[in-house]
């Protein structure tokens, strides 16, 4: 997708979320109220199928476009299961199955399915097989930190099956969560800078205190790192497919996961008690950052994977491997 088109799409999505989403909608999500209107608007823009090729009714967006879009979702704490549905459609398409319209629940292994109870269809990934099933999933419960509806796929008959490269679901999910974390981090940093410039103690804005400035500068480093790591992973997947981008996706999940931890720590410290309340919106973001860093493989899982691979390859080629990835 051209830079210009991408910018237009991202602005559209950002405006859509700015106009229709917000803390109330996030809280409604957590009470199990389906974001009917927002989903309809997203469908009207063709977003759920956007990653599928045009021949299958999609827009043929690449993984790099997807990352940019998911980052926007993350900036609004993603109050709908759009990212998951996009991944499900992309993976079905990759396996040669035309993705149906409407919400497709993404079921990777035994992980819970975001909003499975509302899904018209399910994409169930086990090993290298992907099965398209009729939805909805059984109503199970809510995700740990985020409290958004998360359900169990359960058993069911396949409408179609296909094969995918190993770990495709895990990789795509990790890419999604890394991008959402990068976006959410931008949002909480902005919120916190704004707060630091308005909250006064000792007769001055707390943002004037050097201790606060140093914390937020460190946070900015993590926010920038997360954004670059996610974008790098998206670019690699667009170039080499998910399997060929394992190093970059794993790196993004590690860096974004670490940044989520450090970032949340800092923004809560600066907000202090008001940020610890249910009423304040900060936790609507930070709880989702904690959720997303655990989902589709925590930092530990991905770090071990690329670390073990590097150890097996040895010190002589470490640098050549790192620099050679985009130079073939």
């Amino acid at each position, binding site marked *: 997708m051209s830079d210009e088109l991408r910018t237009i799409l991202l602005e559209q999505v950002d405006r859509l979320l700015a106009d229709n989403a917000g803390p109330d909608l996030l809280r409604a999500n957590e009470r199990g109220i389906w974001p009917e209107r927002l989903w309809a608007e997203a469908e009207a823009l063709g977003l759920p199928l956007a990653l599928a090729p045009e021949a299958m009714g999609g827009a043929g967006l690449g993984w790099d476009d997807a990352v940019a879009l998911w980052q926007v979702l993350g900036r609004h704490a993603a109050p709908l299961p759009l990212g998951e549905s996009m991944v499900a459609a992309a993976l079905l398409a990759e396996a040669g199955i035309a993705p149906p319209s409407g919400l497709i629940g993404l079921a990777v292994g035994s992980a819970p399915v975001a909003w499975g109870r509302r899904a018209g269809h399910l994409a169930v990934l086990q090993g290298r097989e992907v099965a398209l099933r009729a939805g909805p999933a059984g109503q199970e419960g809510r995700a740990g930190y985020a409290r958004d509806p998360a359900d169990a796929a359960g058993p069911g008959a396949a409408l179609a099956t296909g094969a995918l490269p190993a770990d495709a679901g895990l990789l795509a999910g990790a890419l999604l969560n890394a991008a959402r974390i990068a976006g959410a981090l*931008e949002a909480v940093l902005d919120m916190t800078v704004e707060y630091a*410039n308005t909250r006064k103690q000792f007769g001055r804005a707390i943002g004037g205190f050097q201790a606060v400035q140093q914390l937020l500068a460190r946070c900015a480093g993590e926010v920038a790192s997360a954004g670059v790591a996610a974008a790098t992973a998206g670019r690699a997947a667009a170039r080499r497919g998910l399997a060929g981008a394992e190093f970059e996706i794993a790196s993004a999940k590690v860096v974004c996961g670490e940044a989520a931890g450090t970032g949340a720590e800092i923004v809560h410290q600066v907000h202090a008690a008001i940020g610890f309340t249910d009423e304040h919106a900060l936790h609507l973001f930070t709880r989702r950052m904690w959720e997303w860093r655990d989902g589709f493989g925590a930092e530990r899982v991905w770090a071990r994977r690329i670390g073990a691979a590097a150890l097996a390859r040895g010190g002589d080629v470490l640098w050549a491997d790192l620099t050679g990835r*985009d130079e073939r």
Partner: protein
Amino acid sequence: MGALRFDLRDTPPEAPALRAELRAFLADHGRNWSPTVRGYSWMGFDRDFSREVAKRGWVGMTWPRTYGGGERTALERYVVLEEMLAVGAPVGAHWIGDRQSGPLILRLGTEEQRRDFLPRIVNGDLAFAIGLSEPDSGSDLASLRTRATKVPGGWRIDGRKVWTTNAHRCDFMIALLRTSPPPDPRAKHQGLSQFLVDLRSSGLTIRPILDLVGEEGFNEITFDNVFVPDSLLVGKEGNGWEQATAELAFERAGPERYLSSLPLLTAALDDLRAEPAAAETVGRLLARAGTLRQMSLAVAGMLQDGQTPAREAALVKDAGNDYEQALPETLRNLFDPDRTPAEVQEMQRVMTMVARSYSLRGGTREILRGIIARQLGLR
């Protein structure tokens, strides 16, 4: 977040061939570099090595041919820098001239200065030192007091510079000096000027200072009535602060702000196969290295486009310094004195000591974070 943007950049199409050439060259010349040499990385000084590097056209690569440069792109130069750093090559004899003194002369120097200095830097014959810090002026650089007084035909310098890396082995330094008193105490950024100072001038004394590793890395320089001709003023009199700040963007922007300790990871990797906890740690270190590399490339791309990414460079330097400083400490926890090869342990010890400087040189962590905070809009 403010206007900080990091747009991904690819390395140039020339990169693979360039790397192959560099790797062969470095394997050949680096055979006998000790753990201490590699531990000092770009603060290490080896004039013969720098001349060899220069012979291959890897100094002043981006400069115009008129001055001996190679007219290659900033991103090709980036490839050369990162290959040198990845093996801890002792590049100090040409690093500063190539990174900041040369570009400063190219941008603001007179035609005469360009013709005189640039070809000699390109040949590896002219090594530069950075003359900023003074005994009472570190982070508060603009408070510096070493002064240049106007005399017929030139200037007389009196005062003292300190922590000047490799000055005892260098030929010239670019010194930031006070040429007129500040109009009022709060306007101390005014009245500063930059000069090219010959380190063999009479009245100039260089005293090496032993560092904590036990090496003579940096120096104290005393100026006692040192004469500098008018022709060696750089840029505009009184404009030194703006000039030096732009120079700092070059100083902070490079891959040396995250790669200083990477040679230790490379050297240690094979030994770490015997350590069950290593995979996760190595994975985290690699994830960060890859990400910092992309951030650093984004800044290099901005330099290539003719921008001055001072704030982006400050952010990448700060994040990079955290990384390169933590690396020897992190790996230490995976080493076993009975198992880990002696030279790897030795490099770890040297780097643990040298790493203290990473978050000091080129602007301390606290100063960089102050710059980032202002960029964020914190007041």
